[in-house]
């Protein structure tokens, strides 16, 4: 996609330097075009030019969020979402060590995500995990077929504010409820926000297990959680 930009469109923050703006726009376009080679090339170029890793990651996050919005609008499909999430994972792999070194890894909130006991599907979970990371959350992925006590243990260990559960088959409903009940039992329920998703889930399932939110849209999940954390 070739675009005409005005002012500071296509970049995460105002930039006076036109070359800098152009490079960041190239990064955004490469993301939306699912061009992993161009993304990596541009990131390396920006870093070699002295750009801050955090600023580069932030721009990738904006691009990834845009992809999520295009999916919500029905313009992009799961394919584009998956491919961009895969590119974003590579980006994180390049930039995260630099961020830690910088000490600038800020997060909006902590999320424990997983597929409960009885279900091994993970495609949707993996996409949501990446979209949440792209939107600034720290995500702890406990995997698939997870026992309720193991799930809750991770929530307590990380002091995560958010519990995210994904399921594609109905046998996962009871373990989902067990996780919620365990949080109630430990006096933690009121402090946590619980969101569910996945092919067989509905708002009725949300009500039945006692979760706070339900969605089938990865970007919408990020928007819901940002709202919960009080972030615009």
């Amino acid at each position: 996609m070739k675009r005409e930009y005005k002012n500071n469109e296509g970049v995460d923050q105002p930039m006076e330097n036109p070359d800098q703006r152009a490079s960041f726009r190239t990064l955004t376009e490469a993301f939306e075009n699912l061009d992993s080679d161009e993304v990596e090339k541009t990131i390396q170029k920006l870093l070699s030019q002295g750009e801050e890793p955090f600023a580069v990651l932030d721009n990738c996050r904006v691009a990834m969020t845009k992809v999520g919005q295009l999916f919500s609008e029905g313009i992009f499909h799961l394919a584009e979402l998956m491919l961009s999430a895969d590119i974003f994972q590579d980006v994180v792999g390049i930039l995260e060590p630099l961020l830690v070194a910088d000490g600038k890894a800020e997060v909006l909130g902590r999320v424990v995500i997983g597929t409960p006991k009885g279900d091994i599907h993970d495609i949707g979970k993996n996409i949501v995990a990446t979209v949440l990371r792209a939107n600034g959350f720290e995500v702890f992925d406990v995997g698939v077929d997870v026992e309720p006590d193991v799930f809750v243990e991770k929530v307590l260990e990380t002091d995560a504010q958010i519990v995210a559960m994904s399921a594609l088959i109905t046998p996962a409903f009871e373990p989902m409820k067990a996780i919620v009940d365990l949080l109630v039992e430990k006096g933690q329920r009121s402090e946590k926000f619980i969101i569910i998703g996945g092919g067989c889930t509905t708002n009725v399932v949300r009500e039945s297990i006692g979760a706070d939110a339900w969605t089938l849209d990865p970007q919408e999940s990020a928007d819901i959680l940002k709202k919960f954390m009080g972030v615009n």
Partner: protein
Amino acid sequence: MINETMTVQERFLAAVALDENIDRHPVIPLIEAFAVRHYGATQGEGWRDHTLVRDAMIKCQQDFGYDWIWKPNYSWPHLPGRFTYAPVRLLVPGKHIPEDSLRQIDEIEQFYRDDYDEIAAAGWNGFWNEQYPRTRGRSIESLKKRQQVFFDDFLADTKVCEEKAGPVLLGVAVDSPLMSFSMCRTLLGFTKDLYQVPDKVELAMNAACGDFISNALDSIKAMNKDIEIAHIVLERGSGLYYNLELFERFEWPFIQKYVDAFISEGVVPWLHLDTDWSKNLPYFKQLPKGKCVLDLDGHTDIFNAKEILGGHMCISGDVPAALSTLGTPEEVEAYCKKLIDEVGSGGGFMLTTGCECPIDAKPENVAAMVNTAKSYKGKFDRKLF
């Protein structure tokens, strides 16, 4: 109860043919694991003893009274060495996963990007003759022996079901090439293939398609069924996953080839659509009128499907899994009545579960579904359609 004037088979064919003079809509919950659990056996026991599953299917049909037994046991049969779907690795209860778990698919790479060229040269059957031993460490001959046993057991169990209870719906299940390739490459891997090496993928699909069709036809003809039905398994090619450009190149031409081939041999194409196919529905108007079943799983808006395809294709569906599991019989009845009123109006409808009936469906909800189909005619005059 509605006065029934047709046999189960006549009713099925009338629904496919969009006959508005049908006595009532067929009701066919797609029951498999539910029956085994309902009668107190574990999934592991069912996987170890196919006759246990068969007997559960028989009792279930007798107790609930629906029209067709979906399958006589847990097999998805085809002739030995003639794969009609991706030879995925199953996680079997009691063997790989806990005793009473639902069996699941372990989606790992079964072939690699370089293998598309081999598929293009050798076809689907020729490829797997070489690839199976490479990936599984067992000979294709040993696999064929096991597959022959499964095939024979399927036929034998079908015969017992039909003698003691009712007809069995499943003939053969066949993936589209896209579905099989996606399962074999993993969804992410295959998606990258579509974007990065599309010509390779297309060549391989073209080469494999003929084998999928002949494998399915030969398998179903070997079953000697009165009504031959081919379940065409479609999921990974939907508008949820890919844009229409990719659909038009990598899925739609093959759906058309399958349907044409099956119809020409007297086989009813049952197109089973998992996930949301809303964007793709208009294409199905190109298929021959009154010859196919469009079976929806609850994610495609079935009422929208009726608007687009009503009067052209028989539509089946779509009591949602969550409703069967968590809902009340009254809620199930209300939803079924809505389906009968709106999707059933004018004929060309079958009341089924949205994909497989959940293992943990409430029995009273299954009963509500069946009873509604057998007692509720619908509020619209069919002749007004």
